[in-house]
């Protein structure tokens, strides 16, 4: 556990979450969401949860984003809010 890194990452995490929810372009939102996944993966690694970090890297930053982008391609890209 490295406290300064922890704090910085967490603040970035909040920013990423807000951006992902604010973007009206869903594709962008999905990408930011993947970034969010990557950030949180870093946080796990920093906290010593390597297995969780590994899973999050593959699932959160990888598969989730891919699935979401696939869906956005097949549906609508714009969001009203």
């Amino acid at each position: 556990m490295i406290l300064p890194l922890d704090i910085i990452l967490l603040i970035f995490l909040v920013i990423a979450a807000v951006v992902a929810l604010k973007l009206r372009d869903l594709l962008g939102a999905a990408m930011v969401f993947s970034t969010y996944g990557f950030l949180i993966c870093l946080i796990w690694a920093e906290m010593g949860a390597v297995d969780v970090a590994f899973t999050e890297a593959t699932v959160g930053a990888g598969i989730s984003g891919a699935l979401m982008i696939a869906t956005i391609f097949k549906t609508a890209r714009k969001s009203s809010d």
Partner: protein
Amino acid sequence: MMEWIKTTIVPHFNFWIYVVIMMLGLWAAIGKNNLIKKLIGLSIFQTAILLLYVSMGVKEGASIPIVDETMGEAAVDFMAQGGGAAGATAFPINPDLFANPLPHVLMLTAIVVGVATLGVALALCQVIFRDFGTLEEPEILNQIQTIQDDV
């Protein structure tokens, strides 16, 4: 004020952030109109819970929960040489040196559950889009109000 921050927020910084992220996610999951946005919110909500759990298992100055093999082997040898079940006590592994593995295990499960839910939800989104031509909840509800049920 500073004092309060020092005693309340700083030692629990992770927990405060987890609440903030969770509320962001929950707000989006309930309040957003776009279904994909709802799902993003839901995922963020779920990751916030992971943050809660993993934060619980953090120990200051601890390493990752993969035990030192040599220490383990020493205990095994001790037992093999007739030490019996006392091996664990003779060569104790100091639990303070390793992060708590249990929250990690639980959260592996939760991540997997999260991605499974996301997959199903996205499939539903596509079907809804196929049926209604939109992903905005108010429009969908409007259409449901007006159409005859096609059972």
